[in-house]
């Protein structure tokens, strides 16, 4: 479980997050929904320690994370897996080396054991026999799946996904969503997903937090989002022609 308490963040005079307090549940897919510029990525960067908040705290299972010195944060960081928007695969390495990287850094497993784990993770994301492919040989969907395999290689307790569907076709998007959802339940991970994709919301939105202009505007789940009377959320949900027609 991750608790975010009263987070404020500004860049100069521009306030990008205003008093955000939210709890991300363990074993659930927790979505942070909002249009571009609403502060989703900033909130995720604060949760992962890549940005410091102006005030407020982040707790990982009651362990305070904000404002800790880097050396003390490392223990918590090693329990995180992050899927970045572009995958952020190391382009000097092939698929196998990318997935093996956290195992090389943090475990004392033998080469054979590490290889078994890599193959298991690659199989889990339906990429068996892709070990030796270079990152420039991968499609967008494959990159995301390798990034997921790398994120789960070290058995994380917390999985952060920043717009996992961006730039993917609908079918691949569904595959990625299903994969994240299955992994979350299977390993009882606390998963936080930044998205503005309504398909993802309807498929895997167990807990939804809607950000609007840097504020937490609405909380709920995929069933209540379609019947909400919150105007800003309704505008967001029914922004496309397709959703308006479906309504």
């Amino acid at each position, binding site marked *: 479980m991750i608790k975010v308490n009263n987070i404020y963040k500004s860049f100069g005079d521009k306030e990008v997050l205003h008093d955000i307090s939210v709890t991300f549940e363990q074993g659930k897919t927790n979505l942070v929904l909002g249009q571009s510029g609403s502060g989703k990525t900033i909130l995720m960067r604060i949760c*992962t*320690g*890549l940005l410091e908040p102006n005030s407020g705290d982040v707790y990982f299972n009651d362990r305070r994370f904000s404002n800790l010195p*880097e050396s003390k*944060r*490392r*223990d*918590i*960081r*090693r329990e*995180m897996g*992050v899927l*970045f*928007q*572009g995958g*952020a*695969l*190391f*382009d*000097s390495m092939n698929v196998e080396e990318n997935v093996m*990287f*956290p195992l*090389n*850094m*943090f475990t004392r497993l033998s080469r054979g054991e590490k290889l078994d784990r890599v193959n298991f993770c690659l199989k889990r994301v339906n990429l068996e026999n892709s070990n030796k492919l270079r990152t420039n040989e991968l499609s967008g969907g494959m990159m995301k799946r390798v990034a997921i395999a790398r994120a789960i290689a070290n058995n994380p307790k917390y999985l*952060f996904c920043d717009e996992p569907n961006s730039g993917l076709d609908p079918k691949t998007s569904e595959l990625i969503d299903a994969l994240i959802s299955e992994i979350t339940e299977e390993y009882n991970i606390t998963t936080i997903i930044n998205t503005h994709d309504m398909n993802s919301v309807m498929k895997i939105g167990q807990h939804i937090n809607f950000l609007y202009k840097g504020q937490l505007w609405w909380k709920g789940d995929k069933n209540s989002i379609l019947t909400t009377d919150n105007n800003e959320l309704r505008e967001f949900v029914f922004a496309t022609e397709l959703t308006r027609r479906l309504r």
Partner: protein
Amino acid sequence: MLRKIGDYVILMWQALRRPPKFSVFMRQLVREFYSLGVTSFLIVAILSVFVGAVAAILVAYNIDSPLIPDKMIGFVTRQMVIQEFSPTIICIILAGKLGSQIASEIGTMRVTQQIDALQVMGINAANYLIMPKIIACLLFIPVLIVFSIFLGIYGGYVACDVLSIISTEDYVIGLRSWFDPWMLTFAMIKTLVFSFIIASVSSYIGYNVEGGSVEVGRASTNGVVYSSILIILFDLILTQMLLS
């Protein structure tokens, strides 16, 4: 300016620490040896031979006097190559090749969030990325400079032989005259300082890239420009300090 110097010192403080996994560090180091060092042999060889030859021709042209013995051409060529040409000029050439390579590699990793990925995993990204490059440069550039000294002197020998400026025997006698081993130490001290400048300044510039491909290109250019300026500046300081 002061803020940038402070940021540079902090980054080096983070980078130059004991690596958490020695085996991973060694793997990175070997990779850097190849990508920064081995691939530079050819350009160093070509430049050294030709500039050594040109140095011998210029010395012969400028001291064309019956009062000065022919062996002076070998002596002056050797001194030029050891004291200035190999440690300074070759390091400036290497700043162009390695500086842009390091700044653009680390800069690209920054803009594609690869450095963020390292940090989120709890890895000291500066230590993981920068330290192997600095160590590789500190260990390999001196090897390149020694190689360059030999080839520069050999270039002068070839010029004397092919163009019949002086006899090769006189050239070799000049090479062996008034040799002061301190000159080699002086060249190596300069090389080590310049190697550190090339690796650390380019890494700092690449590490602090913000934006996209345009900024990576700019960082690559800045890596070369700042490294070259600092090399010239430290050349003056070190020459004054060590030879005065």
